[in-house]
């Protein structure tokens, strides 16, 4: 086809190419004389976004942590802060355990030290958003991370998206975070209600039986409603009946009215959707009302530390889904690395909030290394590239369409107090669910990601 070109056109093309080559050579020669010119030229190609490029021009980069240090989820918030700090420390030191997850992280990220700073979200969206904004504008944060409440996570995603700063949730159970409220700059490494309900329904049918009658205790906010909806959907597929759904205010202390209602039905499975202290209260009071004598307990999305809060006596026989349990270290060497490092530094076993915090920071740093840049759209694209990493919870990556992570997670059964081998040995891990197998079909939760700039 090229032989159809006339001589004139060919000459022209060669002339064009020659002048381009000349210009290029001149440019390269010129830029070698003036080292700064190249960098300036590149920066002029891309407009500043978020705290970039200002936040990446020194020898350290700042990561802002919006964690709940006060409020009903303060135990999860404290654990997240610990884990982010641990991950930063290990990345900065070039710890070989980090390289097992991301082989690209040699020392710091792109040679720069990660500095983390924490602010108290107070479990309130307003406070969290203000903290994130200060991090980005004042501290030039190139990444924001941390959450327990989905309401807070969704608010943080929105503001970080507006500010073109990658945001990673730690804990967020609601479908909407990577569903209708998904954002281009928001990422969720952890599992959530749809995934855990889909996974646990068949296991619960096997353990508890097929024709069970379920009573639900649902906290009245986004996470509560989406979780109950998912659990009802999947349990009814297994032949379970939904007898009653008691919706209670978030933070309710007294469940007596709801439990009396439930006691007056013929339900034999108590599905506790509540999170944190609400779950502890509900289960304790269920025991006081004698409900646990005739009902089994199902926790489709269990909060970390619940086993400590209610004790083995109440947890025994309960089926729970969580993001991580420390005995996974027996079968996963990367889990062992994480549990040992956390236990050594903080004197306690980590729960799933800590795991997702640890993972989130490492995966962001890994993405920056792969993008070879802190430029936010490049980092986001690197995260969307589908590169699979080995982690304490199996191989995982983020789905490009909705930024949902597909890490594995355990289904657990509460041990009898007599069977506990040590004070932390609350659970038998019945099954480690492959996260990918329980993701909803792309588009089902209704995610439409926006633009990069």
């Amino acid at each position, binding site marked *: 086809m090229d032989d159809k070109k006339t001589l004139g056109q060919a000459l022209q093309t060669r002339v064009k190419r020659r002048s381009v080559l000349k210009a290029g050579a001149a440019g390269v020669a010129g830029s070698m004389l003036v080292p700064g010119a190249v960098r300036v030229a590149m920066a002029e190609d891309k407009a500043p976004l978020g705290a970039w490029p200002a936040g990446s021009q020194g020898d350290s980069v700042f990561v802002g942590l919006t964690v709940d240090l006060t409020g009903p989820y*303060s135990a999860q918030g404290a654990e997240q802060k610990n884990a982010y700090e641990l991950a930063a420390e290990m990345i900065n030191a070039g710890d070989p355990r980090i390289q097992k997850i991301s082989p690209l992280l040699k020392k710091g990220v792109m040679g720069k030290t990660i500095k983390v700073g924490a602010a108290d979200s107070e479990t309130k969206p307003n406070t969290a958003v203000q903290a994130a904004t200060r991090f980005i504008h004042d501290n030039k944060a190139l990444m924001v991370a941390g959450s327990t409440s989905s309401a807070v996570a969704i608010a943080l995603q929105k503001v970080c998206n507006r500010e073109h700063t990658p945001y990673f949730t730690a804990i967020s159970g609601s479908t909407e975070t990577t569903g209708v409220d998904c954002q281009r700059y928001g990422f969720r490494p952890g599992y959530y209600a749809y995934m855990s309900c889909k996974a646990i329904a068949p296991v619960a049918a096997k353990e508890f039986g097929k024709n069970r009658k379920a009573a639900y205790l649902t906290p009245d906010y986004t996470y509560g409603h989406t979780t109950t909806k998912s659990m009802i959907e999947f349990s009814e597929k297994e032949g379970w009946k939904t007898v009653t759904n008691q919706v209670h205010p978030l*933070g309710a202390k007294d469940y007596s*009215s709801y439990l009396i209602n439930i006691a007056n039905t013929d339900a034999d499975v108590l599905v506790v959707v509540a999170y*944190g202290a609400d779950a502890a209260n509900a289960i*304790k009071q269920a025991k006081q009302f004698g409900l646990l004598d005739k009902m089994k307990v199902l926790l489709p999305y269990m909060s970390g530390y619940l086993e400590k*809060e209610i004790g083995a006596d109440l947890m025994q026989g309960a089926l729970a889904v969580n993001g991580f349990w420390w005995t996974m270290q027996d079968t996963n060497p990367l889990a062992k690395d994480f549990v040992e490092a956390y236990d050594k530094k903080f004197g306690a076993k980590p729960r799933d909030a800590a795991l997702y915090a640890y993972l989130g920071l490492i995966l962001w740093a890994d993405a920056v290394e792969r993008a070879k840049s802190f430029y936010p759209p490049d980092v986001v694209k690197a995260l969307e590239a589908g590169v699979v990493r080995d982690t304490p919870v199996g191989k995982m990556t983020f789905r490009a369409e909705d930024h949902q992570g597909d890490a594995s997670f355990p289904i657990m059964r509460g041990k009898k107090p007599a069977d506990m081998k040590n004070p932390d040995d609350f659970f038998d891990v019945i099954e480690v669910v492959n996260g990918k197998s329980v993701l909803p079909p792309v588009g089902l939760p209704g995610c439409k990601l926006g633009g990069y700039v």
Partner: protein
Amino acid sequence: MPSMSLVFSQLFNGLSVGLLLALISTGLTIIYGTLGVINFAHGALFVVGAYAGYTTYALTGSFVLAVAGGSAVALAVGLVMERGLMRQYYSRPPEDQILVTFGIGIVLVEIVRGLYGGVSLSVAPPSWGTGIARIGSLIYPLYRLETLGIAAVTLLLLYFVLYRTSLGLIVRAGIEDSQMVNALGINVKRTFLVVFGIGAMAAGFAGVVNAPIVALTPDMGFRYLVDSFVVVVIGGVGSFPGAVVGGIIAGEILSLTAMINPQYSDVMLFAAMALVLIFRPQGLMGQEGRE
């Protein structure tokens, strides 16, 4: 249509919840009535009492000592608060009083969180409180039944102090007209100290008594603070019988609404408060025109 046995259970439960609320609210209402101070630290005093009770129980293994310990610590904190800080604020505008008690509330809660952490704690019910009571077809936790009794007895005791002792007479007179009481040569400052102490102790006592029922967290007081304000508004500021009646009404509203539509139990409580404010702003048993 809920069954008779369910209705009866919820009515009974409402009474139990209500009397505990009444106990907490009594402290709030006598402080506001006598001192004119809206004590936003009241929920925090509830928490302080509960956690002090937890520690005492852990140290002694005796529930009775735990109740005494929790109340004593709450009393002490209340006295220090009054002497150290509140005293300077009586003559200042109400906004300042609200801010200082709110601030103290935050400080107290964060001290508790600093000492005990955010993971919730458990207090086991006493040996005479474990198990389930059966009253006809009604199944009810034995300990809750006992708290009903404890709250009732304590309220009677408070009634006795307020209406049958000279201290009580001064307090009630102070609620009516503290200037007059001062003019009659009675040491109002000391009365205020005692009243604040009693109010704080009532909150702390309620905190320990309630502890075996709930999971203890540093933030749990906020919910009770809000509910006790609603009770005080419904019952009438400064009125002891009003706190009791208001508490029972609040407890019943919460329980009975939960029976029909659990999502609306909070809404109904606040709707009731709104109705009282519209039609009888001084509260059911409060007095019109009181400062």
